[in-house]
């Protein structure tokens, strides 16, 4: 029972991080129909920005916010400078560019910061919480992780559901031409979508790094896990991405806890294949009937 509780809690924390990362992929997919393979590398870069600030004694939370702001700008820049020029060409062009960007960011970071592992601090304790005299499988930082991801999610829901800006962004993603005819500056909305996604990705990077070691490759597994989580929930659905992230986090945690760590990537792949076979549009994709 204790072990079940522990693995569940661990899975939820892991799932929250996958969810945030999947959400970032989903935001970009929705607005530009591109799977951004550079997402992990972009989050790695912003994490290094935070680390550099922390190393010169900038307070953790200031560095945290600075990294998010840097992510926002990086996302906007990538859309403007790399994605926009190939807009309207085959979607594959943009995807290959994001792969290229992944490698460039990797290389540059290694060049600037070196490839060795560095410790990344956490703002709160990363040792297990004790209840009575037994420790349970979640740390204060784990709790904080879940809270932060939940706040980010709630913020996005409010933005998209209840604000005019969110309405413009959704409309631009669904039908650019009609949105332009209604006066929406679609180009700006797409840039904003990438910026927002990269900011969310930056949050995921910071949460993954917290209390752990970082090197230029530390986010790489998330290219795959984030993608699986997003596909699991339906790349089109933000809520789906979150649920997909949680399902993946829990599954991997159970597999690691009860079977063995080495099986986790295999199980993740198995889940992906199963979803692609049974429900290629994802578990939670709206019964989309576009352009009917």
């Amino acid at each position, binding site marked *: 029972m204790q072990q079940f509780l522990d693995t569940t809690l661990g899975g939820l924390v892991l799932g929250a991080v996958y969810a945030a990362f999947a959400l970032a992929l989903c935001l970009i997919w929705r607005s530009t129909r591109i799977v951004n393979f550079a997402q992990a590398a972009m989050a790695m870069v912003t994490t290094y920005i935070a680390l550099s600030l922390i190393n010169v004694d900038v307070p953790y939370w200031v560095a945290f916010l600075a990294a998010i702001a840097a992510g926002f700008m990086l996302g906007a820049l990538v859309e403007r400078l790399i994605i926009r020029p190939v807009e309207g060409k085959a979607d594959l062009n943009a995807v290959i560019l994001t792969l290229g960007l992944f490698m460039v960011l990797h290389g540059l970071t290694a060049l600037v910061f070196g490839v060795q592992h560095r410790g990344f601090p956490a703002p709160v304790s990363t040792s297990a919480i004790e209840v009575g005299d037994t420790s349970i499988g979640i740390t204060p930082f784990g709790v904080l992780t879940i809270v932060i991801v939940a706040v980010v999610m709630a913020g996005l829901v409010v933005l998209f559901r209840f604000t005019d800006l969110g309405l*413009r962004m959704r409309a631009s993603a669904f039908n650019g031409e009609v949105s332009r005819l209604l*006066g929406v*500056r679609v180009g700006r909305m797409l840039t904003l979508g990438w910026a927002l996604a990269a900011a969310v990705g930056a949050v995921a990077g910071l949460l993954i790094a917290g209390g752990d070691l970082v090197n230029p490759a530390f986010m790489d597994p998330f290219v795959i896990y984030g993608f699986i989580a997003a596909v699991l929930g339906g790349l089109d659905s933000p809520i789906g991405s979150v649920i997909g992230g949680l399902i993946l986090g829990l599954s991997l945690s159970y597999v690691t806890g009860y079977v063995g760590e080495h099986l986790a990537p295999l199980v993740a792949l198995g889940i992906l294949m199963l979803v692609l076979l049974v429900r290629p549009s994802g578990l939670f994709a709206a019964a989309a009937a576009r352009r009917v």
Partner: protein
Amino acid sequence: MFAVEDLSAAYGPVKALNGVSFTADRGQVTAVLGANGAGKTTLLRTVSGLVRSTAGSVTLDGKDITRTATEKLTSYGLSHVPEGRGVIAELTVVENLRLGGLHRATGSEPMPIERIFELFPRLGERREATAHMLSGGERQMLVIGRALMARPTVLLLDEPSLGLAPRVVAQIFDLLRGLVQNEHLTVVLVEQNARSALSIADHGVVLNLGKVVASAPAAELAADEQLRHAYLGF
């Protein structure tokens, strides 16, 4: 007054619009008619800046709006309802309408959504429905309602009758007629369904192969048997 002067446009080597001129007056419906491929859609898309004009000008109450960015036109009071009922299928009826009101004509009062529901009670009953669940007629009502949310002075409509039952067409055209009278709108109505369009239009412009072949009061066009047979198919 809305005026198009010598407007031309091309898709690569294909000249789809070849020196088209006409005017549309306030409080009137101007029908733009012609067979498939005559250039009607291209005309509206060129006016809206979705297709680049190669020559000519578009003016709205004397103001030159040729080659204005598409996104700016609603603020000048020009709304274009595209061919094929451009509802945003993933948004609800209310969201589509809200979107229409976000960038309205400069200096105009916001349009209460309830006004649209008074015009189209059917939409009011389906306000929370996602647009992809609407029938063809309801979609047409939604895109017209959404355009009205921007408080336009000029409304460009591309084949609102396409694929609709004759009764629904009559209903929508009646409504348009009423709008033009009450709101003093300028309506440019592109139609293949020439008979219905001429029945509510004040003026008619006939296009063929990207050129104006006739421009006259609607009743006159409807009475010209030769022209009807040659270009209008009735």
